[in-house]
């Protein structure tokens, strides 16, 4: 897979840059440990040889498009990443006309860190039902059949704990949190100019890096992604203290799927569930 995909991506990137279709191709290159991938920004046709694609290509590169507004750019997306393109298109954050999408049928990415790589797939690949990109201009790989619906077993397992245990669990996680906001910075859905957490007036979250404030941050971060999270799980991957943020995102995702039969980022004109409604729905609220 790897070398063939890599070659197709290089060829396409070269063509796009040579023709001047785009100014920049955002893809992956080999990182400083000599084997794991990192984001790469290719501006010259001669540089395309830097591009690679393998099972460490974890990063959701769509986030970078937010810095490329108004500049024709190509981006390489896996299935999950492609959903964030739809999200950003529907929220008018990127301009389809300026973007060339190289979709890659994702074979799954492995757990890795700098200078260490396992053969085990990342947890997000276990839930993933979007190996095929939902939106692309050029597709690398043959589309595959997606698996049966996700059973959210991780969430169910968490729910077998008592409320007190869950509270203690999250408090413990909040103790670790250093509020570096890497989760936010990596997330394609987080693009506010001024994040609520850093606003001084209203001061929603106090300055202390303490469990109460950290919990507030983590709760609202997850809630602001309600019906918008596309499960790329970049937030969890980048967390320096390994907080299992996917649990929060997926708890909401399961609810959104159950109540509204909605999956974020599946089409560019979808309306997110919290900004629409149905009159006669029963949601267990006020009933």
């Amino acid at each position, binding site marked *: 897979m790897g070398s063939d995909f890599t070659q197709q991506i290089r060829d396409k990137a070269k063509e796009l840059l040579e023709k001047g279709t785009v100014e920049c191709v955002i893809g992956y290159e080999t990182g400083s440990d000599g084997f794991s991938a990192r984001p790469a920004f290719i501006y010259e046709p001669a540089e395309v040889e830097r591009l690679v694609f393998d099972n460490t290509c974890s990063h959701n590169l769509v986030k970078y498009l937010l810095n490329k507004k108004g500049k024709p750019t190509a981006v390489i997306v896996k299935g999950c990443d492609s959903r964030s393109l739809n999200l950003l298109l529907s*929220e*008018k*954050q990127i301009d389809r006309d300026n973007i060339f999408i190289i979709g890659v049928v994702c074979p799954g990415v492995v757990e890795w860190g700098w200078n260490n790589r396992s053969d085990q797939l990342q947890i997000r690949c276990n839930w993933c039902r979007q190996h095929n990109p939902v939106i692309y201009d050029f597709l690398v790989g043959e589309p595959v059949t997606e698996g049966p619906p996700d059973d959210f077993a991780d969430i169910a397992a968490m729910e077998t704990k008592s409320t007190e245990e869950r509270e203690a669990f999250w408090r413990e996680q909040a103790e670790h949190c250093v509020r570096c906001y890497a989760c936010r910075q990596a997330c394609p859905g987080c*693009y*506010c*100019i*001024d*994040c*609520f957490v850093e*606003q001084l*007036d*209203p*001061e*929603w979250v106090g300055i202390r890096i303490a469990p109460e404030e950290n919990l507030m941050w983590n709760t609202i971060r997850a809630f*602001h992604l309600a019906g918008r999270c596309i499960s790329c799980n970049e937030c969890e991957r980048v967390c320096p203290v390994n907080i299992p943020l996917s649990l929060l995102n997926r708890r909401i995702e399961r609810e959104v799927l159950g109540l509204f039969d909605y999956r974020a980022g599946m089409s560019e004109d979808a*309306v*997110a569930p*919290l*900004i*629409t409604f149905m009159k006669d729905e029963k949601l267990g609220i006020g009933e």
Partner: protein
Amino acid sequence: MSRIGVFVCHCGTNIGGVVNVPEVVEAARHMPLVAYADANKYTCSEVGQASIRDAIREQRLDRVVIASCSPRMHENTFRRTVAAAGLNPYLLEISNIREHCSWVHSDSKDATAKAIDLVRMAVAKVARHESLLPKQVGLTKRALIIGGGITGIQAALDIASAGHEVVLVEKEPSIGGRMSQLDKTFPTLDCSACILTPKMVDVAQHPNITLLTYSEVKEVRGFVGNFEVDILKKAKMVDYVKCTGCGTCWQACPERIPSEFDMGLGSRPAIYIPFAQAVPNKPVIDIANCRYEKYLKWKETEEGPEPPQCRICEGVCPTEAIDRSQKDEIITEKFGAVVVTTGFKTFDHSVYGEYGGGRYPDVISSLELERLMSAAGPTGGEVLRPSDGSHPKNVVFIQCVGSRDDKVGRPYCSKVCCMYTAKHAIMLREHDHEVQCYVFYIDVRAGGKDFEEFARRAQDETGALYLRGRVSQIYQEGKNLKVLGEDSLIGRPVEIEADLVVLATGMEPSDNADLIAQKLNISYNTYNFLIEAHPKLRPVETQTDGIFVAGTCVGPRDIPDCVAHGGAAAAKVVALLSQDSLTTDPLTSIVDPMKCVGCFACKEVCPFNAIDEQVTRDKRTIASINESLCKGCGLCVVACRPGAVNLRGFTSQQLLSEVLTLVRG
């Protein structure tokens, strides 16, 4: 630093009997930013209000908290009070320590503690209040009426007579609406045309009314006082300045098309007026059916056989009024108010398979019978069976066809069918004494002036046989129809051999009522009837200021109700247009352009279309609030993740201050 004054009301013993008012006042004195605190026996009394005004002046207070009854009670009173002392009326906050405290708690200690908290919260909130000024916007003193039926006619005449300009838009070539199709009207048996036609003529002749027939509303922008409406004027192909309405053309036209006005029972030419008394009494060319227009269409592609050229109308017109160069045209007009009177159509009974599903020519709708009975109708007023032209003797009426029937998705009562059926029974007997009428009904609903007497008359004097029950099946047997039903009062099946079956089809909103509602941003129910602002207290207003509704587009009603409704809407419009400017409530949303990311979640949730797009100097597309449309619900604020939208009077800062004051003391 603010200087906040706190005024705690005893409200006689209403508050003071439970809450320890002096303790609250003392506590208030120590709250941050509070410069002055005092108690009043009755704050709302003139003495009480005067003491506040004095304190504001003497203590140089710049914000005021009044702890008293519910703000829903006296907020406006006290706003005037502080305004009289020179403060901006929005620098006031009411703390509800009566309804929410002293009246519902009996323990003095708890109630006092709670009252102190409530005052503390109000102090925290008032500190973040800003001076607000209501805005004045001008208005266009013109009204648009959509739909030229009896309701729209009445509204147009009333508004025009009050001295305001009116534009009446009607999609058909003539005004008059459904009422013009009726023969007689219940319960007085007035001739419908006789009472309607003079009003139609009044409309045409009124100097304040511009009549736009054969026209449709395409798009509506703006807000109360300042609507901008695109109106499509369909090409009539006749120059109305030259045309005298002599009728030569429509008599000469060789084409014959089923007449919509006669419910397809008669026919009309391709250049036509819908009915003899049409207003304006000038024809239009039905482009889809005109032979020459068809020929022109064919010329473009030359596909299929060549249709004949015709142009007879052009040849015979004495004033050369036929003008084929006319094109559909969109004009844009400004209005201060809009009245929607788009009326109704009758239920399509072909969904009732048991009544033949529209297969039997002698099963007709009531409106078809109206046309058959009308002297100006296709049969010249003789009631003849559509199948063979014979005079029916046994006539079966079936009530509630497309009304009160969940099965066809029409659970509501259409209100007029019981009465018009009684009218039909009486009239048929008048036309032909040998006629025997049978009426299958669920209930006879005759609630109206002289209605019950009229319905009785149909039964007692005319001998119509009223059978309580539904019809299970109608089938053709030879020339006649067999009607199988049940008389539920005696509990036996009934079988009637009928010559004619008349279905009392119910009312439903005209086609595209929902589309018009969407254009105007007003609500409609599942049947597409428009929804009034309040079913009892605001029956002709809508949730969108400046848009009014009247007549059968709101719900089934009869002619007198429609006329009254139209008049009511007119009165509201006149009241609105009589003002020189409109005052907008300043408690609206605002956008911080530095924070807005342009995702337009706010626009998606705004129920009032009050959010527009705007491009900043650094070329970002961001949201902006149209303060004239904004009603201050705050949905946008919550939808906005970066907190770029805020709601004056209920800002995020204020609500957060209230919470923090409470939890952190």
